[in-house]
């Protein structure tokens, strides 16, 4: 694990590139229906941004930005958005995942279906982002992850791996 101020070039470069990476991921998710991209790809890019921060700045820095409970919450919310949009179509007398029946104030059915596609891609993106960061956090840390405990004991446990 790289300690703080160990490698100034990597840290500085990641600090510069982080904001464009996250913006690009959100762009990929929201523009997925009109250009190459979609929920899976954008979610992977967002997750890779957080993994980049964790590699360059260390786990403590990243855990202060996005906690593990927050990651789990985001991935649960992603699946819930997807299933919720599907179930909401049943309430307005459609089939499951029949977005054309959603009561949006738009004139044509096809536009409403496009909005539905965008909605479920947000859900997919959140889930994929959460799972990517969660798998990385679990694989990289030998024990439970706690940002306060960065003392000697955990360092020793890390070095033994």
């Amino acid at each position, binding site marked *: 694990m790289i300690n703080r101020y160990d490698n100034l070039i990597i840290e500085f470069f990641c600090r510069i590139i982080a904001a464009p990476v996250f913006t690009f991921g959100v762009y990929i998710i929201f523009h997925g229906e*009109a250009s190459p991209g979609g929920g899976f790809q954008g979610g992977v890019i967002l997750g890779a941004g957080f993994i980049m921060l964790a590699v360059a700045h260390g786990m403590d820095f990243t855990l202060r930005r996005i906690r593990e409970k927050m990651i789990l919450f985001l991935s649960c919310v992603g699946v819930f958005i997807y299933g919720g949009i599907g179930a909401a179509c049943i309430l307005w007398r459609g089939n499951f995942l029949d977005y054309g029946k959603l009561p949006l104030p738009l004139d044509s059915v096809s536009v409403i279906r*496009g909005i539905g596609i965008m909605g*479920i891609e947000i859900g997919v993106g959140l889930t994929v982002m959460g799972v990517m960061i*969660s798998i990385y956090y679990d694989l990289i840390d030998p024990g439970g992850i706690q940002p306060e405990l960065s003392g000697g004991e955990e360092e020793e446990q890390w070095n033994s791996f």
Partner: protein
Amino acid sequence: MKPLKLLGLITVLITGFFLIYGVSDMPNWGDKNAPASTHVSPYYIQRSQAETNAPNFVSAVLADYRGFDTLFETTVIFCAGIACMMLLRKEDDG
């Protein structure tokens, strides 16, 4: 080379031989009239813009026509994340 590895190599070569034998029945690369490209994909290519207002056919098929597939695909990767967490995380304080 150990005998077990030799057995593995022979198995792999036999599998590869049968696959190469089956290649002669497959369509050529870039064939416009391949069976995979004539059954349901013309419908997707022609109708998805009119029906779902999405110029990207892949997104339209992924999220609309095959939405059920994608829903459970999302559930599968969510379960994989949960499985990693249950396997590797030691203590849990809430």
